[in-house]
Structure formats: C-alpha cells, structure tokens
C-alpha cells in the first residue's frame, strides 16, 4: 500500500467519477460536474470526468460536449458492469496519469464501494456525504458534512495528501446547464492482468418500483381531515406532483382508507425522507416519533396551535382543501408552459 510522498503542486484539476451502469448515468454525476466546474473556475483548473465500462464511446462524447469537460474513457468487455477490483485498478491508473487534486464521486452504492477502495490504495482522505464543498486559495478542498445525525456540521480538509476525495449524495447540487461544445475524449487502457476480479457477477435483476414509504425520498402524509374519495384524489394529485409516496396516520388505517403498510408512527413505519408534507395531521406524539427526523417538514393545518407545528420547519396555516386545488392548478399551469 504505497503512501505517496506528495508534492501538492503537482496535483491539479478536479475529477468526477461518472457513475453509470451499462450506459445509464446516475444523475448525481452530472450534478458533480456542475459543482466541479464551479470549484475549478477559481483556480482556473481543468475538470475531468472518468468513465469506466464497455460501449460508452457515444455517451462519453455526449457528456464531454454537453458540459465542456475532458472525458477519460476506459472500455473493456470485462468492465461491462461494476466490479470493485478492476474498476479500482482503472481508477488508480487514471489518477497516476492525470494527478487530479480533487476527486468527486456520487454517494451511490457504486461510489461508496469504489471511492473508499481508491482512498485506501492512495493512503488519502475521503469524506462521505458532503453537503457543501469549497475550494481554498491553495486548491485545498473543504469538505463540509453533517456529523452525529446532523446536530453538528464539520469542515474537513486534507492538508498533506492528494488526491482529496469526497462523495456527495444525489440532489445536493444543481444539474448544470448544457452547452454545445466539442467533445474531447481520451481513451486509455490497463494491463489485462489488472482486469481480473475475485468477485464475479452471477446474475442481476433490475429492481421493480415497489413503493415503500420508508424508502421514499418524498412523503405526503394525510391526517384525520381526509374522509372522502374526492378529498383523497386531491391528495393523490398533490403527491404525484411532488413524486411522493402517500402515507397516513392511524385513524385512516382504521377507517380502511389505506393499507397498514402506509401508516407512519410508532405503531406503523418510521420514515426519514428528504421531504415530508403533512396534510391535516394534528401531530400526535406517536405520529411525530415516526417522521420527525425527516430533512424538511412542511405541515399544513388550519389550527395554528396544532402540535404538528412543533416538529415542522414550515408551518402552513390554512384549510388544506382550499389550498390544494389552487396549488395543483398553479403547478399544472406552470408545467404546461415549460
């Protein structure tokens, strides 16, 4: 395990690992390209993208031209799907060749497997799930992330090692605008012996979309206020606009309006989505226990003293059955103009 004796000045630019499986690019990679371009502008550094796989030529050209960045591409039939060892060997070759100062990868299943392996091989630092990134004047990458369940934010640096590495979750940064550039793709290869893997893929199945409120990134939770099918239809449309899963409080289960798998609370499921919007939920303790760790909580209720507002980041005070139709109409009309 070589510890590189680092001359920091030799390491320049920001590299982004393009997370893709058989040509399907994870959108977090594009968000990271956007961030890398923003960070590199300060040092007037190049932005590189690394692609590993098979049959990716046209995709590599498209990404390079669309975002005005240099793509490094390594293709081989043995690299068709992700395997930690050969992918790590290709990545290591890229690092030796390009010497990027910083490397960004999505905090995806692949990114969380590949990035640590690289970091250990190069004896360098890796910060997981950064929520913000900054560049210091000397090109140092400031990796900002919550620690201890979000109660503390930490600013982390990698003073004496290169590359500086960070993973970032999906939907933290913005997707950059596309430009109409000229593609610049550099192909490279590694020794066949480095493509060997002690892990082999036996079979794989694409996941079906099985909705589970615990896995949902966005949840719309309905309370006692909802009684009729007409009212439920409003909530369904609202949830659809937010790409949300519908959930509910216990009374709605008891009324037979929902399947028990959709109940939030101590006697139901715990959810920790990026966003939860509660509609007409008063906020019993047992309900709040199942959702109060959501990243962002919007609560809509007509009673300003409803306990749900204690857990809410956004307290929306009003009649849900008046607000929803207007909201839906507004959103639909804006969408139709796009």
């Amino acid at each position: 395990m070589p510890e590189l004796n680092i001359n920091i000045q030799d390491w320049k630019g920001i590299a982004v690992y393009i997370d893709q499986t058989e040509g399907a690019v994870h959108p977090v990679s594009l968000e990271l390209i956007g961030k890398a371009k923003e960070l590199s502008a300060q040092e007037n550094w190049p932005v590189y993208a690394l692609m590993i796989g098979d049959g990716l030529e046209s995709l590599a050209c498209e990404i390079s031209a669309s975002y005005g960045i240099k793509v490094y591409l390594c293709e081989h039939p043995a690299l068709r799907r992700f395997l930690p060892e050969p992918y790590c060997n290709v990545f290591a070759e890229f690092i030796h060749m390009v010497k990027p100062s910083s490397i960004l990868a999505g905090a995806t299943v692949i990114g969380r497997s590949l990035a640590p392996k690289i970091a250990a091989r190069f004896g360098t630092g890796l910060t997981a799930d950064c929520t913000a990134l900054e560049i210091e004047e000397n090109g140092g990458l400031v990796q900002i992330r919550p620690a201890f369940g979000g109660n503390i934010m930490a600013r982390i640096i990698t003073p004496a090692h290169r590359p500086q590495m960070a993973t970032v979750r999906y939907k933290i940064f913005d997707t950059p605008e596309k430009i109409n550039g000229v593609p610049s793709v550099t192909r490279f290869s590694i020794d066949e012996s480095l493509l060997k893997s002690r892990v082999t893929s036996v079979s794989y199945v694409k996941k079906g979309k099985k909705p589970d409120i615990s896995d949902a990134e966005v949840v719309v939770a309905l309370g006692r206020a909802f009684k009729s099918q007409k009212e439920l239809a409003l909530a369904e449309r609202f949830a659809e606009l937010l790409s949300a899963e519908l959930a509910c409080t216990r009374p709605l289960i008891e009324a037979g309006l929902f399947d028990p798998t959709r109940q939030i609370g101590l006697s139901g499921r715990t959810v920790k989505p990026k966003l939860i919007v509660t509609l007409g939920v008063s906020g019993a303790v047992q309900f709040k226990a199942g959702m109060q760790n959501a990243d962002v909580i919007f609560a809509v209720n007509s009673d300003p003293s409803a306990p749900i507002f204690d857990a809410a980041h956004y307290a929306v005070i009003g009649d849900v059955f008046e607000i929803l139709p207007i909201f839906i109409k507004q959103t639909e009309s804006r969408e139709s103009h796009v």
Partner: protein
Amino acid sequence: MEIICCIKQVPGTNKVEADAETGVLLRSTAEAKLNPYDLYALEAAFKLRESIGGTVKVITMGPPQAEAAVREAFAMRADSGVILSDKAFAGADVLATARTLADGIKKSGSFDIIICGKQTTDGDTAQVGPELAEFLDIPHIANVRIILGIEPSNTGHIRVEADMGDYIETFDVLLPCLITVDKGAYVPRLPSYRLMLASASREIPVLTAADLPGESEMYGLKGSPTRVKRIYPPDAKNARFNIGGSSESVANSLLNELRNLKFI
C-alpha cells in the same frame, strides 16, 4: 469457517451537541450502545455459522469502555472478541481506522470472511469496510442483503445477494473476503441474559499500538489524512417558517418554497 465481525460502540443518542463558541463536542451526556447496523452483521455471521459451522470473533476499536460492545456480542453468542484500544488510536479518520483494524485483524489470527455493518450511526460514512478490504488485499462486496451460501461448492467462494441501487445482483466472492451487510434478510436476535452471565468472565485480549506492526504515527489522528478544521452547530433551520394568509397566497408560497428546495 472463521468469521470476523467488526463492531463499534456508538453514542446512544444522536442528540450530541457542539459548543458554538469553542466547537468542542459535548459528548458526556450521550450513553454508548452497539451500532445498530452491526446487529445485522452479527446476525449474518451467526446464520452463516449455523449453516456451515465455525466461529464468530468480534473485533472493535475504541476506548476501554468498548468492552461493553464485545460483551453484548458475547450475549448474542459470539465466540471470542478482540479490542483495539490505545490513546494513539484516538482521533482516527476512515483511513486510520481501516488501517488499525486491518493490522489488528492480521495480528489476531486467520479468517475466512469479515462481516461489517453497512455503516455506523455516528460516523455514517459506510467507508470503513471497503477500505479495510483494500488494506487486507481481499475482495469485498458492500450492501449485501443475504448470504446465499458457500457456492459454487468446493471453489472457495461465497455467494451473496447485494442491493446495487437499481439492481439486485448476485455475486460469487472468493474467500477470504469482506462483505458489508444491510438490514436485508436479517432480524437481529436479542442478547441473552444467560449467555451474558456465562461469558462474563471470558477474557478479551486488548491490542495496543505497541502490538501492531506500524509506527504509532500510522494510527489515530497522526495517521489520518483528513483534519476536522472546525465543527459548528448547523444553521438553526428548525427555526420555523410560517406561511399564512389567504388560501391563494398560502398555495403560492407553498409552491415557491417547494420549488426553491427543488422538490418540484
């Protein structure tokens, strides 16, 4: 099958606070417990032992109190344990942690498989497992849902099913190897009071920096390439933002806020 399970003691609550002025961590109020994700790793280890025989050894790095985590694993029927504990190990980032564990594992005998929890609830990085595998030069697969068995038979592989995001993928991994386990198919057993009593006097070897091959500068804060420059409380986002007024303006504000947050 010699199975090693890496476990960690974590604060019992995530209500850990930092002093806004000094940035010093206020941890005294937080009780310690076994990292919840490690319970699945332990269960996977026990199930594997049940199906093909063998031993489960737990290994942990931490302060002397981390013994409690090992004792808890004993109460769930782990066979033996090792504690890596030294002031020189303190302040370790992912790299230094993985290196310490790797050296401790090498020092404490042979193994066929290392099973780690997917992540810890304090660091939340999910990175130590894959780094540990790299240090030990063994293959790894992360996010394993279930161990399917020793297959194909007599080839020295283990077959696992992993959650790869958009796919569920089955892999054959050559032993010795490391896997990290997600909830998946495993329902953790409860610690048994009887086993706890029966194992109460079982000795747990403690390895210090002097027992490991690297210079002590390789471990702990000194061996960590990352530095926490500053910690601070997050912006008071819980400060509640009220949206009120006519239904029309409430609906518009709601839409604007959700758009600003990129949810729509």
